[in-house]
């Protein structure tokens, strides 16, 4: 009798210990999968960027999710520039059509205040995600995940704008000698925009039309991120914090805008109207010495994943193994990025949340950044330390290091109330200047428009949002 009890007790203890072991060892993605199985047979709808992103999600995430949990996934895409309006429209119509929404963090203040996003702190606790959340690099969480103390999203894409340069051209002894002769200092990856312009001029003056110094996007939706970085580095401030009057037309603004316009002269002909793909093709064809851009360019220049059937639109790379990585101005811009959130009008919030936790978890997100067609860039500490990512091409470790440092020192792109509208105003000014308008005039107009908008939004409201953004490191730390 006692032996029986003894055995039973022993067995029970072993069982208990065993299950404790299993729970402790479960990773966030496993927890999510197990919890989601209860929803097997149902369906969730994910709203995200159309085109390559959609394909990437399918390949790297949703197919697997359906296999593991039995939940069908429906992808609804919209062109990047139209995503914001589509989310707002569906929210205003209270349709509950989207469960997961892939948002750009700069929209968070508006979306949360509108009530479009669901707070997910309770789910994080319930499903034990807090630990893996810590692993997300601080510059991609913080303001990306939380707003006014509550968590709404998981930062999911490490967009940092770093410098890519042709090592082979910079290491060339003749180039080095010539540059020293013409500019008086050593030819290196430029440390600031002044040097960047010198180097750009150098290559163009000496080698055009075979080679130009630099190429950057000049199209409407994307150029403003690059300009904003230089503006902020030059000491520019968007507002006077007391009056909340726009100070975008200060000397810093005018000089950085003028620099942007002047720089365009030294880019390949036609660059003034180029979007990302045009610039990418010039870069991959080896026609330029430098570019500042998104991390995807780093992978694609090395030919990583470009033979996938979804990538047939990319021209062949001629510069594999020739690219070096650095940062111009020490503090790169972190823009725009994506974060996975849950729609507040969704009828399947828990199921949506579980997908987000799974896709964003350490293990799964690593896989996703390795699937090149997903265009998700490394954003976790564990990504930067991953041996697999470092093995993608010979120079990948340097790439990861630059991305990590860039992120650590980076600045968040502007995020206020009604961000999209402010961005349009700034874009107008930049495009006008590229088209020949005097930068001072263009920025004066922008300042005036910004003031009208700020008055519409409410000065005090906007000041709070502005202060919160500054606290999240919107401006260079030294200032």
């Amino acid at each position, binding site marked *: 009798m006692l032996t029986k009890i003894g055995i039973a007790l022993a067995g029970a203890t072993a069982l208990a210990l065993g299950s404790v072991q299993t729970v402790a060892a479960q990773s966030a993605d496993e927890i999510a999968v197990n919890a989601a199985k209860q929803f097997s047979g149902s369906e969730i709808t994910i709203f995200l*960027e159309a085109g390559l992103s959609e394909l990437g999600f399918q390949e790297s995430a949703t197919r697997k999710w359906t296999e593991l949990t039995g939940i069908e996934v429906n992808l609804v895409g919209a062109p990047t520039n139209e995503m914001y309006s589509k989310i707002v429209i569906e929210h205003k119509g209270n349709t509950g059509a989207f469960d997961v929404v892939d948002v750009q963090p700069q929209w968070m203040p508006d979306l949360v205040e509108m009530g479009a996003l669901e707070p997910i702190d309770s789910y994080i606790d319930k499903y034990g995600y807090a630990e893996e959340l810590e692993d997300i690099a601080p510059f991609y969480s913080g303001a990306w995940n939380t707003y006014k103390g509550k968590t709404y999203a998981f930062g999911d894409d490490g967009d940092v704008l770093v410098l890519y340069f042709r090592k082979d051209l910079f290491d060339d002894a003749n180039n080095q000698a010539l540059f020293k002769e013409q500019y008086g200092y050593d030819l290196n990856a430029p440390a600031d925009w002044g040097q960047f312009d010198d180097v750009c001029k150098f290559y163009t003056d000496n080698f055009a039309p075979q080679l130009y110094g630099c190429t950057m996007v000049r199209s409407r939706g994307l150029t403003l991120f690059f300009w904003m970085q230089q503006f902020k580095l030059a000491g520019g401030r968007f507002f006077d914090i007391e009056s909340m009057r726009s100070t975008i037309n200060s000397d810093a603004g005018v000089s950085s805008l003028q620099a942007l316009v002047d720089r365009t002269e030294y880019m390949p002909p036609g660059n003034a109207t180029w979007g990302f793909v045009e610039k990418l093709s010039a870069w991959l064809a080896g026609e330029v010495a430098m570019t500042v851009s998104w991390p995807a360019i780093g992978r694609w220049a090395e030919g990583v994943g470009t033979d996938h059937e979804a990538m047939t639109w990319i021209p062949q790379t001629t510069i594999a193994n020739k690219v070096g990585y650095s940062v111009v101005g020490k503090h790169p811009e972190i823009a725009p990025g994506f974060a996975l959130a849950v729609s507040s009008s969704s009828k399947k919030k828990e199921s949506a949340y579980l997908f987000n936790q799974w896709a964003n978890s350490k293990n799964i997100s690593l896989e996703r950044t390795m699937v090149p067609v997903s265009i998700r860039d490394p954003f976790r500490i564990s990504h930067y330390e991953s041996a697999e990512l470092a093995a993608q091409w010979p120079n990948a470790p340097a790439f990861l290091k630059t991305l990590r440092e860039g992120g650590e020192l980076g600045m968040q792109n502007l995020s206020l109330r009604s961000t999209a509208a402010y961005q349009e105003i700034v874009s107008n000014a930049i495009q006008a200047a590229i088209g020949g308008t005097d930068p001072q005039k263009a920025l004066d107009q922008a300042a005036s428009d910004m003031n009208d908008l700020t008055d519409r939004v409410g000065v005090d409201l906007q000041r709070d949002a502005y202060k919160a953004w500054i606290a999240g490191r919107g401006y260079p730390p030294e200032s």
Partner: protein
Amino acid sequence: MWLRFVVGLLVILIVVFPVYWLFSMAFKTPNEIFAFPPVWFPGSFYIENFKTMWRTDDLVPVWNSIVIASISTVISLGLGTICAYSMARFRTGGDNFAIWILSQRMLPPIAIVFPLFLAYAFLGWVDTWHGMIIVYTAFNLPFVIWMMRGYIQDVPVELEESSLVDGCTRWQSLIRVVLPMSRTGLFATGVFTFIFTWNEFAFAFVLTRDGVLTFPVHVSHYFGALSTYWGKVGVISLIATLPVFLTVAFLQRYIVRGMSMGALKG
């Protein structure tokens, strides 16, 4: 005639060159699309894009557009023509009614699409076949009504009067006399009603998600922030052009001179 032919050929060449440029993207490799100097002819018969799109669901939106545009065109033509007849022959509603109809076409779609979305959300018509067909029918009716009113006014009243004297009802007269006489207008109006629906972007973008994706919205997805599928754009544009092109090419006898009214002059 030969002078006309040569001039015509030149005109067509100029008009069609940009179309050729676009379609050639379907057959060009990315290096050729972004080549400097530009490549005038695709170097090879590069058909990767066709193969890929055939395998995936990329061509479904073209079919969706065909269905929606066809059905709403037929309904618009039917309802619009009889309305136009009433306005042309009886001056129904007078000028005010006519202006009101035309005013429906003064509204920029993006201006009214948001309240329309709210209404549709309420009715549960977002992203549905009937929702899109009804929207496009309503969108096209003013055009059909006004164009057909003009074409019907071109049909001499005497012809109808003589048929009525012969014992036809108004309705029969409409079907047997007026419609055949105005069939060139009907054809031209029908072609463009179809085209307007085919090309429409604003309504389609807001009122669909992924269930009833139409071709213009689907094409816009090829223009991403970091990617542009020019090859697919070329392919889908080529295929999307076929329905209208073939219709106009083969049904041209409906607008060709021949059914002249001279025979009935008298």
